[in-house]
């Protein structure tokens, strides 16, 4: 089986996890999670240098910070299936006494999570601090971050974007999930941000676009290019064009599934479009 086929199978199973987790508690955010399934899979199964086990300091390995914490289902599924905690624990998502809180947290000690996120706009700053700590530690590994596109409406991001280039934080790859949707509608309708690319370039970042953000090979190519641009004096931004709800036909091309769980029938329909590959939790 090719590497790409393995990654595809992994992604399909992640989609099933997302749908089943959100359905089980009738809450959560499936749309953005489904749209980022390929990205997380490539990150954790192909791209990142990871040590076995988990420690908070993460010295000697690449780090990832999720800023748009509401897409916790995809994060949890990929962390579990990458060995950070038992896959069976996905069944506790959003339930009482779970380590899998609605939004990710370090508070319950879930391996793989290094910061709480959910209140938007904070993750990029944290990733910058972790990247600068790596430089102080002479740790030649990369810090990855993911933010939503609607999330860029939070002003703290622009403080962070200005800082990262001014201070030459060039061991940082910040990806923006450009799905063009947010809770109240399209990002253009809610608050048109113009060209995100032009904005990052104006702030003196190296910018790479991945036009097919739900295509594993395109993500690998784009992220490999991004990695090659690290260490050259500029922070690197990846604009990842994804489709919210990708992989489930009735969840695509709309913001309606940003934060809504499928019914029993809708779940069955969605799962039929994503047959099990690695076994359900």
């Amino acid at each position, binding site marked *: 089986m090719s590497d790409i086929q393995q990654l595809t199978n992994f992604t399909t199973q992640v989609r099933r996890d997302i749908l089943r987790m959100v359905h089980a508690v009738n809450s959560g955010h499936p749309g953005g999670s489904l749209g980022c399934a390929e990205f997380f899979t490539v990150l954790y199964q192909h791209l990142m240098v990871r040590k076995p086990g988990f420690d908070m*300091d993460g010295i000697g390995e690449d780090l990832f910070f999720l800023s748009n914490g509401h897409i916790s289902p995809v994060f949890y599924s990929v962390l579990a299936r990458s060995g950070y905690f038992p896959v069976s624990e996905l069944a506790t998502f959003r339930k009482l006494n779970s380590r899998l809180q609605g939004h990710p947290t370090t508070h319950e000690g879930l391996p793989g999570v290094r910061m*709480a996120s959910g209140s938007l706009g904070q993750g990029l700053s944290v990733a910058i601090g972790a990247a*600068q700590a790596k430089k102080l530690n002479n740790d030649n590994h990369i810090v990855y971050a993911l933010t939503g596109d609607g999330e860029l409406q939070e002003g*703290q991001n622009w403080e962070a974007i200005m800082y990262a280039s*001014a201070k030459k934080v060039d061991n940082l790859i910040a990806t923006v999930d450009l799905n063009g949707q947010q809770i109240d509608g399209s990002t253009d309708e809610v608050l048109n941000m113009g060209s995100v690319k032009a904005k990052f370039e104006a702030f003196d970042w190296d910018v790479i676009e991945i036009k097919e953000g739900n295509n594993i090979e395109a993500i690998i190519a784009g992220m490999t290019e991004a990695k090659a641009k690290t260490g050259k004096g500029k922070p690197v931004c990846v604009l990842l064009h994804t489709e919210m709800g990708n992989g489930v036909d009735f969840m695509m091309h709309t913001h309606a599934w940003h934060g809504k769980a499928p019914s029993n029938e809708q779940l069955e329909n969605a799962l039929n479009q994503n047959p099990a590959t690695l076994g359900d939790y």
Partner: protein
Amino acid sequence: MKKYENQGSKDTRSGFGAGMTELGQKNENVVALCADLIGSLKFDDFKKNHPERFFQIGIAEANMIGIAAGFTVGGKIPFTGTFANFSTGRVYDQIRQSVAYSDKNVKICASHAGLTLGEDGATHQILEDIGLMKMLPGMTVINTCDYNQTKAATIALADHHGPAYLRFGRPVVPNFTPADEPFVIGKAIMLNEGTDVTIVATGHLVWEALIAAEALEAKGISAEVINIHTIKPLDDEAILKSVAKTGCVVTAEEHNILGGLGESVSRLLALNTPTPQEFVAVNDSFGESGTPEQLMEKYKLNNQAIVEAVERVIKRK
């Protein structure tokens, strides 16, 4: 009563700067972050001696708190520095999520707290910060009284794991605590033993409490004075032991009456031994421009105000 000598007035923020200078030499994991206020926070020496561990963030406090949280992931011990207002109210959600809820070992160090910031006025004179910070689960809250104590607290914080808020001020005030006094987080310091009333004071009001105790002694009232540098966790035992003896208490702080040290003491007493209490604190208002002395007099935060509060509370015994 026991006499305390002013060893030479200094600002508490210079105590912070001196603490940072010493920490820079003895703990290589300590990093300092500042939001365009190096001189005000007395970061000059740390910056000069350890430029690689000093981070000028610019006027972007939210980003500073987030970056500090990120530094802890690499095992660093970040100390952030700006005015108290911009250290807390401006960045409350960043502290709540990225520091407190994430249990990050960030030290939020805040100068120019309270009315004694003076002429800049109410935009800068935060009187709500102790309340904001003490409500965060897991947050240690410290308000120091003089140069020596601020220096000692700064150094002690580096060895304490967990989020902490260190509050100090702008003006030059008497420096009277011993330079070699150990700083134990959460442990109150008994300054003067007395039998008629307990005065529990924090920050700049501690010296005022000592002056008040002298004036009260002249009136035949024996005041016990406790220096509460750590508001959270509160030294319950020291306060309960004292009020068991005196039967009444006055709390004194440069903070709003709502949410400060006084309310923490009230909660403790209500749960254990309901006791008459009077508050020396700002009566739920904003500050204004003026000299520190004028403001402390107008808002009744000086030694005379403490004496009056003691006379009121003793009548309620």
